[in-house]
């Protein structure tokens, strides 16, 4: 089994709302000024990656960490040795939000993803917020378009990076009407569980099991469609992740 921890965040990365959660994780790393690599790949098709890095840097610097932006935005970046080297000493690799499909297209099978997994295996924290969390599932929702309410006009499901097999991560869970989630969940395969993570809420892997942190809840929707909500502070078991080579 890998030694590093996973952190799945429903939204709110690099905002004051997540400061307490992030401080707790930094404390757990157990070294002074942990190095945090901020990777805005999910926004690689937008004009916001530098803004994500700036925001993340400010956030983690204020928490006493040593942030560095790693601009893996397209597939060529993910094959670039310099980008891989940039995370070689990272204690925490943090993927911010954007488009999960672009994340998977960019990272799947890449040198950079291999480097991320190597760091996770060697003890680094791997965190993803919103799309960054979605990509870690065995499969991921793949939203397209925006309607007048800011919700996706269409939703697909595609293969994720598979760190959490048979899991589909659903961030912003409390911000999207339940009927929409039910509708979208109809796309999942038998065996897939939907992991709904509220905004400004994180699911943090512990030595044994997982714990809910932040203001909201984490809801596990099982194969039959029934949802069980776990409030902040609750412990979750039964979410297995793949062993990394």
């Amino acid at each position: 089994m890998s030694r590093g921890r996973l952190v799945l965040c429903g939204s709110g990365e690099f905002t004051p709302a997540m400061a307490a959660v992030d401080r707790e994780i930094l404390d757990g790393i157990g070294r002074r000024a942990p190095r945090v690599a901020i990777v805005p790949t999910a926004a690689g098709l937008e004009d916001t990656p530098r803004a994500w890095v700036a925001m993340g840097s400010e956030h983690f610097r204020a928490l006493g960490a040593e942030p560095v932006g790693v601009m893996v935005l397209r597939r060529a970046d993910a094959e670039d040795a310099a980008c891989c080297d940039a995370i070689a000493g990272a204690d925490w690799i943090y993927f911010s939000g954007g488009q999960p499909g672009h994340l998977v297209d960019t990272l799947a099978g890449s040198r950079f993803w291999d480097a991320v997994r190597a760091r996770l295996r060697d003890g680094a924290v791997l965190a993803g917020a919103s799309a960054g969390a979605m990509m870690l599932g065995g499969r991921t929702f793949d939203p397209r378009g925006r309607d007048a309410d800011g919700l996706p006009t269409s939703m697909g499901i595609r293969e994720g990076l598979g760190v959490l097999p048979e899991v589909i991560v659903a961030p912003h869970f409390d911000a999207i009407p339940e009927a929409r989630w039910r509708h979208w969940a109809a796309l999942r395969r038998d065996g897939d569980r939907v992991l709904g993570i509220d905004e400004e809420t994180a699911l943090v892997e512990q030595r044994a099991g997982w714990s809910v942190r932040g203001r909201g809840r984490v809801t596990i929707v099982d194969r039959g469609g029934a949802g069980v909500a776990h409030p902040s502070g609750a412990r979750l078991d039964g979410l297995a992740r793949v062993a990394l080579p």
Partner: protein
Amino acid sequence: MRSDRRRRVVVTGIGMITPLGSTVETTWQGILAGRSGIGPITRFDTSGLETTIAGEVRDFDPTLYMDRKEIRRADRFAQLAVATAGQALADASLAITPENAPRVGVAFGSGIGGVSTLVDNILAHAKDPRKVSPFMIPMMIIDMAAGEIAMKYGAKGSNMAHVSACASSAHAIGEAAATIGRGQADVMLAGGSEAGLIKISIAAFNQARALSTRNDDPAGASRPFDRDRDGFVFSEAAGCLVLEELEHARSRGARIIAEVIGHGMSADAYHITAPAEGAEGAVRAMRMAIADAGVAASDVDYINAHGTSTQANDGSETAAIKTVFGKHAYELAVSSTKSMTGHTLGAAGAIEVIFCVLAMRDGMLPPTINQHTPDPECDLDYVPNAARAARVDVAMSNSMGFGGHNASLIMRAGALT
């Protein structure tokens, strides 16, 4: 142009048998799962054929719908038609009674009808002319699907067959809607059926270089819009819709699934098998359907494309969609369910209209599977490889047939005003 005096036509029942299943729901679940219904041909010895795969309907039991005597006297294409009509009537909770029977009609299409019966009897005739069945003619003629449905269920209204190759059942549905629209029927059982999966059919399409020869990968053989497509996959199927005049449906408390709002038709007048230059015939059919529907092109959310997996069709149809929809072509979803069902020829229009209706009912876009290598000419959103959830208010179904026949149908979902 659309006449405001035309009576409105709604869908109140659907029935379907395909290589993915012998009911609407089993087929639809297969479609949403992105499952292929294509496999090695088991119906006959394929030795000597270039293509040895097809979309066979494997679990159809005609005894659920007809008695043994009726089955013996009906070609498989007519059996499938009767079965899907029965499913659709049950789905619509519609009883045909002596009172309403004269106002219930049938319009059913097929591309090659009872070709199997014909070939069997040719072979019998070669041995001994007295071995030819007295039922050969009534079994093989394409109008017998409509005739058998009428006889089985007692529909005594307008009754006809539509034959326009792979556009047959799209034309049947469009003309059935028109029959209701102009007041000549209150209910029409409309659709199409095809069951010509025999050795000579495969040989003939092979000679025409129309079929995929990806025999070692049946599930991957039908790949519309993919650069590596190499032809269509021959399949059998049937589909039937209960079309009903809106007030008639309301008065009996019927569940309204969708409304048929537009129908466009055209001929290429160009070539026996190839689409016209610039797909201008398909363009005119789509534009006519949009005008008939009284909607803007930008209102169309989803197109179930003809999408046969042939080099000739898919690029041409894509170009036609771009011509008709302009920038919106890149915003709407287009998919070819033939990637899963194969090409069901004269039944294709019917089952694909049903897929449009189900897409609207469930808010699910059927995928185009086997999308692995992009074709620069085919650059629309084909809903690649996996279904997507999306609201679909207006859907179009395209059908095109050898001979240059083009038909487009437009359906609308939602509460009817």
